[in-house]
């Protein structure tokens, strides 16, 4: 058995461990970094970088109050939200650090795992019978519909670069990005921009949603989880951070170099994830939230941009 050979096995195990560490440990730090950048722009000190970790640990240990209206569906939302985000993360590589699991068509599983998490979250919001949470659920469903095509246009563009006989694996697909940049940099830039929009809308960041507003009619994700408290809210916060990291890893897959050295790849990956968090913080500090009615226009434009990217790469 060649793969039991320690010379082959050890780097493989190390890569998987590095990937798991980034996927499971880093996410709350990114959220903390975004908050820090926003505080800097607002001229405040802001909460400590590690605050999200403290919040999650504290919430997991607290008691909770559950609405009498709700059923088991209310608790399934947070549970599936976290489980699907982690499972999707196991399929997404971080630049040169390949994903622990890869198989033909895994990109579809990533998209539909995130959809399962969204479906459970929406139902858990509707389970409370609150008008606010219904409102958030409706908006979440709408924006997800409009964001999905942009993601898939990107997949198609990269799939066209793959050699004919290669299997359709996410790792190989993102590995074609350097070829894409060399062949049609304009197309790749359009797809990167569209995926940045997907990152912002899927994670409910400004300009689509404001994660900091509470008690307002304009928000989406925060309003869906108004009734969750204690451990359930802790699971939701952690799940949301993991989801941000997973989609961030997808986006960075278009940009990151593949060095072939684990330490270098890890440094690039973690560094660029932190850079992405700073970028999101800068976007959030320098833009206002869009009017709700304008959001679909922007999402459709993003999908069309990605479509132009496909055309540019197709005629390269």
């Amino acid at each position, binding site marked *: 058995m060649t793969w039991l050979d320690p010379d082959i096995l050890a780097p493989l195990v190390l890569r998987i461990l590095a990937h798991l560490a980034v996927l499971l440990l880093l996410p709350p730090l990114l959220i903390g970094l975004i908050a820090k950048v926003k505080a800097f722009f607002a001229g405040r000190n802001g909460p400590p970088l590690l605050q999200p970790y403290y919040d999650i640990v504290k919430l997991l240990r607290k008691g909770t109050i559950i*609405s009498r209206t709700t059923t088991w569906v209310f608790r399934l939302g947070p549970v599936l939200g976290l489980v699907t985000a982690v499972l999707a993360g196991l399929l997404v590589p971080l630049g040169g650090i390949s994903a622990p699991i890869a198989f033909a068509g895994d990109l579809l599983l990533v998209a*539909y795992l995130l959809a399962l998490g969204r479906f459970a979250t929406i139902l858990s919001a509707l389970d409370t019978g609150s008008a606010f949470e219904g409102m958030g*659920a409706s908006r979440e469903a709408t924006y997800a519909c409009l964001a999905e095509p942009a993601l898939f246009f990107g997949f*198609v563009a990269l799939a066209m670069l793959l050699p004919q006989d290669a299997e359709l694996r996410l790792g190989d697909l993102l590995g074609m990005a350097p070829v894409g940049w060399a062949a049609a940099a304009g197309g790749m830039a359009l797809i990167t921009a569209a995926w940045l929009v997907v990152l912002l809308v899927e994670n409910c960041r400004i300009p689509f949603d404001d994660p900091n507003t509470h008690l307002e009619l304009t928000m989406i994700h925060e309003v869906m989880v108004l009734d969750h408290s*204690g451990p359930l809210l802790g699971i939701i916060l952690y799940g949301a951070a993991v989801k941000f990291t997973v989609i961030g890893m997808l986006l960075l897959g278009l940009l990151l170099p593949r060095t072939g050295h684990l330490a270098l790849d890890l440094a690039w990956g973690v560094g660029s994830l932190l850079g992405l968090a700073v970028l999101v913080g800068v976007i959030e500090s320098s833009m206002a939230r869009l009017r709700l009615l304008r959001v*679909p226009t922007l999402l459709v434009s993003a999908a069309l941009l990605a479509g132009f990217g496909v055309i540019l790469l197709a005629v390269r």
Partner: protein
Amino acid sequence: MDAATCIAIAIACAALSSVPGGLRRGAGAVGSAIGLGVAGGAAVVAGCWGLWAPATLGAPSAALLDGWHGSLAVDGVSAVFLVACGIVAAAAGLFGAGYWRDTDQPAAPWTRLFLGLLVAGMLAVFSAGDVLTFLIAWEVMALAGFALVATQHRRSEARAAAWLYLICTRVATLALIPAAVLFVHLTGSLAWSSLSGVSIGNPAAMAMLILFLIGFGIKAGIVPGHIWLPPAHAAAPSHVSALMSGVLIKTGIYGICRVSAGLDAPPVWWGGTLLTLGAVSSVLGVTWALGSHDLKRLLAYHSIENIGIILLGLGLALVGRSIGNEAMVILGCAGGLLHVLNHALFKSLLFLGAGAVDHACGTRQLDRLGGLARRMPVTAACFLVGAAAICALPPFNGFVSEFLVYQGLFAAVRGGWGWALGGLIALVLTGGLALACFAKAAGVVFLGEPRSPAAAGAHEAGLPERSAMILLAGCCLAIGLGLPLLQPMLTQAAAACAPGAAVALAPLPAAWWVSLAAAAIIAGGWALWRWQARRLVGSGSAGTWDCGYAAPTPRMQYTASSFAAPLTDQLHAVLLPERHHPDLRQYDGNADAVRLFPSQAAFANHPRDPMLERILHPIAQAGAWLCVLLRIAHPGQLHVYLLYLALALIALLLWSLA
């Protein structure tokens, strides 16, 4: 004994399932359930058997008509359809035993009679060995379907739905008969298997394909032939709707498969047309579903969507055969066929759930329901499984088939057949819209607080109903988990549908991984669920917080229309809803109309079927108007007709002289 004998037994059992009810009072419900159960089991066995050992059964006597014996044949093409029909028939029979009782429904014996005939007709359609047997079985099925749609004929909407169904099924037959005549003309034989060797280039063959497409397309509910589907499914009793939506519309897909499988070299336009129709049907079907406020109509529109997804797969496979792309053939065919079975399972599950809700609350209007998950826990859990499955969410069966179709579309784009990009975008849009639509349906019906006293007083369905729903939900999960076990059957069936392509032994990519992912979701979800359940023991309960609002009422909840509004507003051009609202001038500064206190006001928003009301209805009216013009030539007086005869004879005389 072989697969064909087995299917003959199944047909007989189904056709005779209503007999016990005629012999002994009170035995009808149980007898019908047992008869349909046995028929369903035999059909499943016959389907699986025929996959590896195709079998034919001729009528024992001499020729019934000149040169026609009547024959049954089971092979790989019919296998998937027989299995789907078997499982759904058994579940529908079981559900009907509790749901449609003699005590509540005076016409229940008739319903059982036609239900048995419908199942027998469908099984015979799927196993007919020749064109004439096929057409006879088709007619039995179509007419039994008409009687079943008209079950509640005292309601005007049921009568209207039944007439519309009858018109559509007549038009379908009107297309199929000349198609069958052309078939015999081209092949010189009645047997389905004789189509190979016919060249498709000539106009007669082309006309045959188009006529088959019209006939089968109307039955399958492909846009624009879908108009009969929503009213008929809404009007029929729910276990009948389950059978109609799960299996009856698949007879159209079966016909398309059967004809396509016979072609040696299908032309690219044939697969391309199916793919285009599939893309259009899937997007339009789900869009109309999003605008529907009636639970069963909503499900019916989703049938149109899923027929579209099946066609995407089958069309892709046919194009793959035309351009010689093996990956497209295996993935498209396996995905499309598996979706036939999957849609039969989850859609009948959803219709049975809708039936249980209708029975418990007396209404199917989404905005009058709510909070049923507390009152009907089993129905709610089963409906949620069906909803997740139809949205193609793992770990259920819908994901598995769409996974294959998606991969086929990617293979087509990579293989240089760029049209597949349209299909891919349609499938992506459909997925997102279906998720929104089922979040709406499941959320508004089962979650939150009841929106009407009827919903507040709902009760759980009886044991037979619950067993039928659990059976189907179990099948949905089993296929989601068991793709590797299904793989040999699926590739065998795909090979039968795409003869000539070396697909039989090609493994489906990543079958094990899909199962593993489904298992991981369940295991991970279970572990985290256990943790939070232990953590939350003894947690307090209170009213919904609702931002601190102290006096919430159920009427303040988001309704189905408000949930879908952000999307339906975007899709206004396709939905064309009809809105009724009071004259708003009374509220503005118009001195004549202004009143100090606004009177009672109401707002209603009715989705309509734009294809029927904006396009087909005006065309039909124009046709009727032309017929009125034709009446000028029909004064009803004898001498005028004699004059016509004389003129015709003179014209013929002149023509023969010249």
